[in-house]
């Protein structure tokens, strides 16, 4: 039985190879022209059909044409219905003949229409191109070709894959191809044992993806179904563990965001005792500074675009810090000794800053783009972690470390603490209190500003940005224990992790409510926060 099955497969392989062999022969352009023209069909079904035919034709430029279609660079002339590759050039399209690659006369924009693609088409094209580029010399093309087939699971590509697998040198791509093949096999009418081998192959890969491929099989009666079922439950139990890990990692990541948002406040409020309702606006100003810096960099130094965030960091620090200094000198300094009134004044400041931003930049979001090193994600086991989140964790911890160093190890830090504990006496010790006050508030604000740079990567940049963080920030600082930077760190992280552990079973809304209730109850146990300062020193 297994022999006969083997023979059938051989036969099938042979059949499948036929079109590929046919494709190897050159086909003259005239025959292809109607195919290309058919891409501009009236509905997506027609286009889709044209795509697969074009791919099967094996025309050397098919990949180019299909890529262009997918990218939206293929146009159809309104007058003669001819199809061309277009690039926007003022009010015209610079046109190229899709088949020959020859330059054509420019076509006015109004005379041509883009050939529309939707998701389904894009998927079809990717799969079609996948077949065409599986043997490409470019590794990335081969990789995406394999990925496309893995998604599309077309049994027809099995022979192609075999060919490619044997030629493949890159181990990673090879594995991907093998998985693609396994996926295709599962989708074919291959024999049970071949399928079971394929299941093993799939199971060794990415867990989530494997689940997606295997779940439909689980219902099948017989050995394949059983094998799939076993594979699924083993993947699932592994996923359980990874879920726990994921909660912790995501919790740390959320915690880092909270930490960043709160850390400036830990200075202006925690150290200085100013109930700084304008803290959120300092964060917002940092985010807007990032926006402006990016605009300038894009416009005048496009080469540095990738690093505009790094440029924005010091600028945001200076801008927010500078505004902080101005606020301190202009308003806050008259309020030392009456901290509750700082609430009123800074609330006023926050209203003014919000409205100023709104008048200046408009009420809606502005766009801050992410450099490539902060885009995308990577997998660790079954956990997906995005680069932006990772960098934010790293960044938050670094900011924390630097700040801790400044406060604990520098003369400035000592003076800041002395001034905020007893301004009058600090002055009598020779400390220039106005200076120190301005610098402290500036430092807190500046740090809020650089937090804004980081938050611009994951959140809205709008005049309301700060409002979204102010409550959480106060919560973190107070939960951790006012005046204790370590408390802020641990507070932020524990709130983040608590949130992430509650979210899966309580849902995001109830989870958040529960966290708030936990904070209320926790404060009963520790009325001065997580890292409460103890002893007489507090009452002194």
């Amino acid at each position, binding site marked *: 039985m297994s022999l006969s099955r083997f023979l059938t497969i051989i036969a099938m392989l042979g059949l499948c190879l036929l079109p590929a062999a046919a494709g190897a022969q050159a086909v003259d352009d005239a025959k292809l022209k109607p195919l290309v023209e058919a891409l501009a069909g009236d509905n997506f079904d027609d286009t889709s059909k044209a795509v697969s035919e074009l791919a099967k034709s094996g025309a050397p430029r098919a990949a180019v044409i299909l890529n262009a279609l997918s990218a939206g660079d293929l146009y159809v002339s309104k007058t003669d219905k001819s199809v061309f590759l277009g690039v926007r050039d003022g009010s015209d399209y610079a046109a190229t003949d899709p088949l020959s690659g020859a330059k054509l006369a420019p076509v006015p924009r109004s005379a041509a229409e883009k050939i529309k693609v939707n998701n389904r088409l894009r998927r079809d094209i990717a799969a079609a191109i996948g077949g065409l580029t599986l043997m490409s010399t470019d590794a990335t093309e081969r990789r995406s070709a394999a990925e496309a087939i893995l998604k599309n699971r077309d049994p027809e590509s099995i022979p192609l894959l075999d060919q490619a697998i044997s030629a493949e040198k890159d181990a990673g791509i090879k594995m991907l191809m093998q998985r693609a093949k396994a996926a295709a096999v599962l989708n074919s009418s291959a024999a049970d044992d071949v399928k079971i081998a394929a299941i093993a192959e799939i199971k060794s890969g990415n867990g989530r993806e494997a689940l997606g491929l295997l779940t439909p099989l689980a219902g099948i009666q017989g050995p394949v179904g059983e094998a799939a079922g076993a594979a699924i439950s083993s993947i699932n139990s592994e996923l359980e563990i990874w879920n726990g890990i994921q909660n912790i990692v995501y919790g740390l990541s959320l915690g880092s965001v909270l930490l960043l948002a709160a850390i400036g406040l830990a200075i202006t409020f925690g150290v200085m005792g100013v109930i700084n309702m304008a803290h959120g606006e300092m964060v917002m100003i940092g985010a807007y500074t990032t926006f402006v810096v990016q605009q300038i960099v894009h416009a005048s130094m496009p080469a540095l675009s990738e690093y505009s965030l790094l440029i924005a960091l010091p600028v945001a620090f200076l801008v927010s810090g500078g505004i902080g200094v101005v606020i301190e000198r202009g308003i806050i300094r008259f309020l030392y000794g009456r901290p509750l009134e700082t609430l009123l004044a800074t609330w006023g400041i926050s209203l003014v800053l919000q409205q100023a931003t709104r008048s200046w930049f408009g009420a809606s979001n502005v766009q801050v783009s992410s450099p490539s090193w902060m885009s995308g994600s990577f997998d660790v086991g079954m956990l997906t972690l995005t680069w932006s989140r990772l960098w934010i964790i790293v960044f938050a911890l670094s900011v924390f470390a630097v700040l801790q160093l400044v406060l604990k190890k520098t*003369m400035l830090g*000592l*003076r800041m*603490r*002395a001034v905020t*504990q*007893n301004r*009058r*006496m*600090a*002055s*009598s*010790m*020779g*400390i*220039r*209190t*106005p200076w120190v006050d301005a610098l402290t508030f500036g430092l807190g604000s500046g740090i809020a500003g650089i937090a804004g740079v980081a938050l611009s990567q994951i959140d809205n940049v709008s005049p309301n940005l700060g409002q979204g963080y102010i409550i959480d920030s106060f919560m973190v600082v107070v939960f951790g224990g006012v*005046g204790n930077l370590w408390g802020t760190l641990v507070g932020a992280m524990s709130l983040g992790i608590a949130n992430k552990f509650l979210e899966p079973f309580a849902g995001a809304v109830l989870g958040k409510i529960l966290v708030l209730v936990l904070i209320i109850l926790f404060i009963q146990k520790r009325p001065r926060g997580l890292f409460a*300062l103890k*002893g*007489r*020193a*507090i*009452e*002194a």
Partner: protein
Amino acid sequence: MLTVENASLHYGAAQALRGISLEVKPKSITCVLGRNGVGKTSMLRAIVGQHPLSSGTISFDGSPLGKKPPYDRARAGIAFVPQGREIFPLLTVRENLATGFAAAKRGNRNVPPEVFELFPVLKTMLGRRGGDLSGGQQQQLAIGRALVTRPRLLVLDEPTEGIQPSIIKDIGRAIRFLRDQTGLAILLVEQYLDFCRELADHVYIMDRGEIVHSGDAASLDRPEVRKFLTV
């Protein structure tokens, strides 16, 4: 070295000093006495710049201090040991002492050894938070902290308050030592008569915001002077 001329001071509507004049000579110990609430602390606050005068002048080294803020006065060499200690509660003892570096010259940014000789307890408690110390320990810290600035004029407001007898003696010795060795001028407000009598080169007595007596230490034993200090 320090001259106060015709100084008046108000708290809101209430007048606490009424045209006070006094002088502190270099290398000398000047002692001010008076009952509770006569304005001693107010005068010291005016000298160190913590409260503005409503009229009159204070000059240090011949130049009027005017509206100079406290930190400039500290940097000019006036150190202050306030009533009620006012140490920084959340800073450690070491850090409390280090706050004095702000007013010290660059080369002098260390704790002079006399401080630990005088108050050995501070050395054992360097890592403890100032606010956790006992009252007397805090008082010792406050004096030590003032010495860290290497002042030329040391202003002390009831420095013996709450300090154990043996250390009071030490403080007396130290003050004298500082006057003799480093040429420090000292302005001392005290209630502790014996302490004053032993130390003072010159004494003033205040009553109701005015100076009512000025003389040497011996004059304190005169009955007409004594009456200012009775109830």
